[in-house]
């Protein structure tokens, strides 16, 4: 029963943060500039190619990952949740001993900080709009912002 409560509260937490985020998005991201610079089909196309080059081996063609080794990207809280933690995973890699959605994964993910901001935005936009995910796209400027915050 403890487990159920834990899982339950985890989803409440995730929901709350998603809710908070969507509110924030409306307030802080006016559509004007952002929308004009985003060509979604082009970004998705570039993202698909980049995914095949840098992500596919570990996360697999269907985004399902590898049980116990590489986490799935299908409706994973990290993928559907906030953009900033997701951008940080690409920039810093992932080597933490933490469970992801109550499962553990052991392979190290290297940092991909050498990819350009636009490439990272394309990959994440692709991931967030494939494998059963339907989340907002990512802008180059959002990656840029997180990258510069890490340098401080």
């Amino acid at each position, binding site marked *: 029963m403890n487990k159920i409560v834990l899982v339950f509260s985890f989803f409440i937490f995730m929901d709350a943060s998603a809710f908070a985020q969507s509110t924030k998005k409306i307030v802080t991201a006016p559509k004007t500039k952002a929308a004009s610079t985003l060509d979604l089909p082009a970004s998705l196309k570039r993202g698909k190619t980049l995914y095949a080059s840098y992500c596919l*081996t570990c996360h697999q063609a269907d985004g399902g990952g590898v049980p116990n080794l590489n986490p799935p990207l299908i409706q994973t809280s990290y993928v559907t949740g906030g953009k900033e933690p997701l951008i940080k995973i690409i920039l810093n890699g992932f080597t933490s001993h933490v469970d992801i959605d109550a499962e553990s994964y052991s392979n190290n993910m*290297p940092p991909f900080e050498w990819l350009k901001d636009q490439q990272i935005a394309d990959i994440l936009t692709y991931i967030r709009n494939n494998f059963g995910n339907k989340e907002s796209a990512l802008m180059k400027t959002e990656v840029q912002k997180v990258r510069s915050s890490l340098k401080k």
Partner: protein
Amino acid sequence: MLRFSFRTIVLLLVILGCSTFYAFTSQTKNKNTFLSSLHDNAGLKLPSGFSAVKIIDSSARIRHLVVTTQGIIYVKLARPKDGKGILILHEDSHGKATITGGFGNYGGTGIFLKNGYLYASSNEEIFRYKLNEKYEVINPDDPEKIVTGLKAGRQHETKSIVLDNDGNIYVNIGSPLNSCQEEDRKPGSMGIKGCPLLDSAGGIWQFRADKLNQTYKDGIRYATGLRNVVGLDWNQQNNSLFVMQHGRDQLHDLFPEMFTEKESSLLPAECMYMIQKGDNAGFPFIYYDQIQHKKILAPEYGGNGKTEGSKQYIDPVVAFPGHMAPNGLLFYTGNMFPVKYKNGAFVAFHGSWNRAPENQAGYFVAFVPFKNGKPSGDWEIFADGFAGVDVVKSPRQAQHRPCGLAQGADGSLYVTDDAKGTIYKIIYHP
């Protein structure tokens, strides 16, 4: 706020529903397992004269196992289930097993039976439990701690174990890195000079099987240059340790200018090594190329896929195609199977992930004939069909994944699956 409450309620209902449904179906399933299995060899393809049954579908992540002469089976779970990391199973005369208990609140892979003790490992320690004459554990909550403080990286963290006939226990300590790059798994990142992690990982360590609280300083680095070993066994014919190495990943991803995706899906070999004290198998400086039949200098250490590495490293005794993930090794000493199988090696291949975008491979149990402690012929697939699908593009598609092997008192072969927690029993009855 509507979205908030609706989604959480649905999730809660799904969770509750699943657990109730699971409790119901797992009971019904167990009853029907034996009968339905008989008709189709539990879905396996086997050589003529062999049959297979599923003795249990447990849904636990069963790694290695031991089978006693008294119908008790002990299985080690990757993660504890309801606080139990070792499950006790009783097998009846109809080939059906029931979980009758459990103990040990730690996950892991290694479990081994020798001289009246059950040995089991977490990812950092090794314990042993005294058995009575019925092979029952006397003090399940009070094991003796044999070894402690072993390094466990995020990767290759499991500790497989085996004992020899002279009171020693051997444990794999896997490399925490794929190939000892300065930045693990980063494209183009070069190897750390000398790969210092080999002082405490990337090899097999030997400890005394009866001495308590041993740490690194009490053990011997028995063999080094082994990236990660999950399947290992003691060959009674030539009194030697044999191990199956998991070869390094991602040659193409890390060095795309040197290796095509196709080459990277096949290389390097999954190697079986016969190990003598002091041996060095060469990880991370070389890898074995089963197509060129050569030890090749690793790209992280200046190689290009062709330049040969140092001759000082041992050669494998069998080189299987890459990435198939050998998780179980067993030398067959039973009398049930035909004479061809006597003293030969069974290898359980968990199945690859690192071949994408090519099709995956493995997901079977292979056999290598042996004579006097040496392979006497080519390897072959012994039991196939665990995946339940013709083509595995991604490991998640595989229904079952072979992991541990054990021999029953009557000479039958047991194979575990850590995806669905199934245990297969393979018998010969021409």
